[in-house]
């Protein structure tokens, strides 16, 4: 990575309306979920008298079937969703980069072993594993993060492996090798910097899919357990009231959509920003 490239990425990001919007949106969501306690409502406080109140001044997003403030629940739900997304992404990226670099750089039997292992994990349908694991493991935020991370590292590992294999044939790596630089030194000094763009792009896309996965899990009831809210479980509960209170589905659905979309847009812009020399006219 050379330093002027970072400037390019920055200007690409800020020069793109969509990119700015995505950044602002994500920042807003993050702040909102961090400062969720300021909403003035307890997300788990029941109030049967006010059940299924439509959105209005008292309850911005209305209330759900137990009369809980939907806005507060959305904020606390976002906390879980974003937390799961981020942490799972970091773990998955960590595993993926390590496996990918080792596999790509050393090659041979080690590469064979790691890649076959990866193939095996990839060949089992994701949801089957998710469901099985969530039956055996106690559903907690921590467990969900680990499960999601373990299901996501393979894609990034493949991309990193391929990129490492190209990088290690570059002449500056050959030179370092011929000069007696150790394998660890070469990876740290010459391979890793070249992988940063791939890692960043992979990581942003991973957050998006982790959030989706958590939502799907919670939607199916295998995620974080009631009464704690996540966007996915809120969507799940909304099913029964889709005719009477469609807003129950609309709010969490929209939040998931916007978050995932924002991360994907960011990933795309970063990918472009790291690559070409020409600008669009």
């Amino acid at each position, binding site marked *: 990575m050379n330093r*002027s490239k970072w400037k390019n990425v920055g200007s690409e990001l800020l020069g793109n309306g969509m990119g700015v919007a995505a950044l602002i949106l994500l920042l807003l969501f993050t702040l909102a979920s961090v400062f969720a306690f300021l909403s003035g409502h307890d997300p788990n406080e029941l109030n049967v008298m006010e059940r299924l109140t439509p959105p209005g001044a008292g309850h911005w997003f209305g209330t759900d079937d137990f009369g809980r403030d939907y806005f507060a629940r959305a904020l606390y739900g976002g906390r879980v969703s974003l937390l799961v997304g981020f942490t799972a992404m970091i773990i998955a990226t960590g595993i993926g980069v390590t496996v990918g670099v080792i596999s790509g750089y050393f090659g041979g039997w080690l590469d064979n072993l790691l890649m076959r292992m990866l193939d095996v994990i990839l060949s089992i349908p994701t949801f089957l594993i998710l469901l099985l694991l969530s039956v055996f493991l106690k559903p907690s935020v921590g467990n969900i993060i680990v499960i999601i991370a373990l299901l996501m590292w393979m894609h990034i590992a493949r991309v990193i492996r391929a990129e490492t294999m190209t990088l290690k044939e570059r*002449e*500056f790596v050959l*030179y370092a*090798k*011929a*000069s*007696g630089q150790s394998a660890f030194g070469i990876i740290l000094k010459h391979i890793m910097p070249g992988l940063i763009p791939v890692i960043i792009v992979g990581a942003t896309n991973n957050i998006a899919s982790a959030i989706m996965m958590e939502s799907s899990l919670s939607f199916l009831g295998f995620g974080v357990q009631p009464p704690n809210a996540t966007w996915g479980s809120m969507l799940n509960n909304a099913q029964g009231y889709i005719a009477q209170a469609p807003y129950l589905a609309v709010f969490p659905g929209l939040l998931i959509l916007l978050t995932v979309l924002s991360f994907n847009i960011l990933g795309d812009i970063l990918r472009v920003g790291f690559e070409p020399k020409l600008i669009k006219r």
Partner: protein
Amino acid sequence: MSESKILVDVKNLKKHFSKGKDIWGRDTDVLKAVDGVSFQIRKGETFGLVGESGSGKSTVGRCLLRLYDYTDGEVSFDGQQIGGLGEKKLKPFRRRIQSIFQDPYSSLNPGLNVLELISEPMKIHGTHQGEDRKEIIAALLEKVGLKREHLYRFPHEFSGGQRQRISIARALSVRPEFVVCDEPISALDVSVQAQVVNMLEDLQAEFGLTYLFIAHDLSMVRHISDRIGVMYAGRLVEVAESDELYENPQHPYTQALLSSILEPDPKKAGQRLSQNGYTAKRGGEGNSELREVSPGHFVADF
């Protein structure tokens, strides 16, 4: 020249790459990139290695740099075998044998500045420290026609020729004895090639360097080399002093290669450039031993 001692001795070098494997990991298809090559390089001389793409010339260079473990044969440097050595025992040789690669855009890590680039081999081999090291690098930069101000610049701020100068400075920073130059000028513009060739010649005279000069530009190779080896399909087909080789080529492949040299002279445009192509099979069973036709001039059977 011929009395000086032999620095690099390559005996029956073979490097085979596996192109396909069965499920047990046994090779089913083998590419014999280098198939029985022997030559010697004397101290202080430039040995040119020419051949077309796929002839195995670069693979020979990479075997000498021990970037590959070769399949068979022996390579000794200054009388010592470097073939089976592990990385630890190899380290002193890694300082004494340095390399310059072809692509000035890929041979320098884009994320490091000139100081960091040139100090890499110095750090590995623990030659000089801190300010001292910086001074030596600055002096080296001036030697290759760059300036002290360039220390903190990044590769993308330089032209192709300047980058190749940085590569040369990097290779020389640890005072090597032998430099493998793998097509060091092929990617450069004509007017810049001459700059780099002159510099390599000057540095050779000043530091007593020995070069292996791998290239496909025949007239430049003749200009810079004392002796030349011609490679074809993984084998050496002819070795001779450079003028002898160009004036009295024996092997049909060498002849075809030489007739394809483009003279920058319109008067010579009348002649046909191509001869009937020489086609020998790769990995044939023939003997890879060379015959001495006149003192110092060796030819393979054809």
